[in-house]
């Protein structure tokens, strides 16, 4: 492997790892803020206990999300300097805005939230978690605007050897950004909802703290369902935008080699290793045409035609992404997301009114829900980034030319190994802590003591 391959692995690993924690942070901050709002408005203690319980799990996740975010920003310059030189004029702006408008907000107000329980008036303290939560969503918006520009460059012109920004408005409000942001944000809520559902199911199966975990279970399941619906709808819109802007990605998602009218969607395919020949598949008629064009008989372009078109447009080269990767990541993204929704639906049904599920299987399914959106999110990113290959900026700048000429293979390998090992160690520690605090259940709220001699409720 050369420095470029190593950098690609590092980027992929860092991005997927970062995005395990980010959706939990985004979704859970809002849910914790909601629970705290319920407490402030009703004064009911179980809401406060739920706020503190989920808040702790939120913070355990937030820590790793933040620190891996620093790697994300730095590795553009470290491993991808040619890319940075080429796109800095356009891509740097949303990135810098993310820092100034979002990072400051989330980290400052989260500090206020963690340490402000005793120092701030109740409502001001509540406002701090909402502000931090809004910060995380703003952050998602700006970084997705930057990513959307890589998927579909707008508002730029070719300058002296680099892309130059001509309209920041176009970059911040283009269609790609506007469909990607709600798709990703709803997926974040789906993830956080599944976390609530899973941890609550675990406690309820053991009969622990019904007063805290029963409402949390329902909240989680409802969030999974509603957010899931949002993910579906936005995903559908996004698929059409993608077909229009990156037809190759859609064709690769379906391993569709020949241009077809009224194309079917294969749920499952076993084919030859290069994905070019199909041995056996399960198909839903016309669904692919519907996903891609919005009509059952719309024509979907195949890989072979698109490859020929691209060669004509961009010169000779391989413009087909790795088909098995796009094909399976696309299905696994949809499949795991759908599975989480199914479990949520069953959970709500079997817990309606005062009912409890009879067997233990549903509880077990509930506990495993936590993994499903995480997997769906990861496969979603793998799909969207791998499906764009060979481009870093679609139609404009290739991955092959994006690396850092001054970084040696040894340096790139060191970076990859060090970061991967570190991520691995942190994952073990994180999961350990997460299980410890999830298993401990919601804290009892101590009776208020005399203001003067009470120690501060420190988190550290």
């Amino acid at each position, binding site marked *: 492997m050369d420095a470029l391959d190593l950098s690609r692995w590092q980027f992929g690993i860092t991005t997927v790892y970062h995005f395990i924690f980010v959706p939990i942070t985004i979704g859970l901050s809002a849910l914790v803020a909601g629970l705290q709002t319920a407490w402030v408005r009703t004064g009911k203690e179980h809401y406060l206990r739920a706020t503190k319980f989920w808040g702790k799990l939120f913070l355990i996740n937030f820590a790793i999300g933040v620190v891996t975010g620093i790697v994300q920003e730095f590795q553009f310059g470290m491993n991808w300097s040619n890319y940075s030189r080429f796109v800095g004029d356009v891509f740097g702006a949303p990135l810098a805005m993310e820092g100034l408008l979002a990072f400051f907000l989330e980290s400052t107000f989260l500090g*206020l939230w963690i340490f402000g329980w005793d120092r701030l008036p109740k409502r001001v303290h509540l406002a701090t978690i909402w502000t931090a939560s809004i910060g995380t969503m703003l952050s998602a918006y700006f970084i997705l605007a930057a990513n959307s520009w890589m998927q579909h460059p707008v508002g730029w012109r070719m300058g002296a050897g680099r892309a130059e920004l001509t309209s920041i408005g176009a970059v911040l409000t283009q269609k790609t950004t506007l469909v990607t942001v709600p798709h990703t944000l709803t997926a974040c809520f789906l993830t956080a909802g599944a976390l609530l559902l899973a941890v609550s199911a675990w406690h309820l199966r053991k009969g622990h703290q019904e007063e805290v975990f029963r409402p949390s279970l329902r909240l989680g399941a409802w969030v999974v369902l509603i957010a899931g619906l949002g993910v579906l709808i936005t995903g559908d819109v996004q698929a059409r935008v993608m077909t229009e802007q990156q037809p190759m990605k859609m064709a690769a998602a379906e391993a569709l080699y020949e241009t077809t009218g009224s194309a079917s969607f294969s749920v499952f395919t076993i084919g030859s290793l290069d994905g070019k020949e199909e041995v056996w598949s399960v198909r839903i008629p016309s669904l692919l045409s519907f996903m891609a064009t919005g009509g059952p008989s719309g024509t979907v372009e195949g890989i072979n035609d698109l490859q020929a078109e691209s060669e004509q447009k961009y010169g000779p080269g391989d413009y087909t992404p790795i088909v098995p990767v796009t094909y399976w990541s696309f299905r696994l993204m949809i499949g795991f997301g759908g599975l989480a929704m199914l479990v949520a639906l069953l959970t709500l049904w079997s817990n309606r009114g005062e009912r409890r599920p009879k067997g233990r299987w549903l509880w077990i399914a509930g506990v495993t829900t936590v993994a499903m959106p995480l997997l769906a999110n990861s496969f979603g990113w793998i799909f969207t980034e791998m499906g764009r290959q060979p481009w870093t900026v679609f139609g404009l700048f290739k991955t092959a030319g994006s690396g*850092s000429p001054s970084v040696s293979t040894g340096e790139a390998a060191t970076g990859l190994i060090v970061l991967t090992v*570190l991520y691995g160690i942190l994952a073990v520690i994180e999961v350990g802590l997460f299980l410890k605090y999830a298993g401990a259940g919601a804290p009892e709220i101590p009776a208020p003591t005399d203001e003067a001699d009470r120690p501060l409720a420190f988190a550290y």
Partner: protein
Amino acid sequence: MDLTTVWFLLIAVLWAGYFLLEGFDFGVGILLPFVGRDDRSRRLAINTIGPVWDGNEVWLLVAGGATFAAFPEWYATLFSGFFLPLLIILVSLIVRGVAFEYRGKRAGATWKKRWDVAIFVGSLLPAILWGVAFGNILRGVPIDANHEYVGGFVNLLNPYALLGGLTTLALCTLHGAVFLALKTDGPMREQAGQIAETMALVSVPIAAAFLVWTGITHGDGWGIALSAAAAIALVTAIPLTRARREGWAFAATGATLLLAVAALFVTLFPDVMPSTLGAAYSLTVHNASSTPYTLKVMTWVAVFFTPIVLSYQGWTYWIFRKRLTLSDIPA
């Protein structure tokens, strides 16, 4: 004023803010093994920076992002050229950030001890390496016609840059000691005061050597004037720490860092990364910058949002202005 100059100044301001703020929380991390006799006192030290360290670190992220947006060539050359030191800094910041959050999440002594080491090392290495990095930027590094750094890793470990690293280490430690004395009461205030006194004395010769070396090799009027002002601020800190006037001492060490960063950037200007292979290859505010349109957009964003950020960060410091003592830390 040219917008490229405005952005050069803004990036200088971001770095100055970063050293002013994260400077003291690095210092507190470095002093952790020395001021904390037991777990409770170490927690006291950590909690002085607890509510603010994360917000402080964002100054670095914004400095990085702003460099990417305003001077992409500089960002690309610097970050790829200084690959290994930046990797060490990244790893340090990762383990340090996680350590603050995770240290208290389990009871075991070994658990806490390991995270204490992470906080110490994670604070120590960036405090040195940022100085080494800036030392190298000032000194100039081999950059070729394509703006690529061609020097390798060992090239970065020259005496001048290492002295730069020692200087930032000394200044951050001093700044952190003064901050600890300012933010605590009781035995820790006394202990931190004594360390600050020593560190003030230790810092002067180190910083003076670095400033004189810089003055001789890069002597330019404003740079020398600002360096001299930084030196005066640092010397002023000595009697102030001795008199235990912590607020004033903190102002003095803060001013030292601000003036030192200002001196550094003024000395650099209009280069952002001079090349030792020939002045024509140097990166300057002109050949490394974004287009006027991007700079204009970014300027409006900065003009509008910087005051907002400053006011809520300032508010945070005001909210947590009370001195802490051991009795504030739950057993």
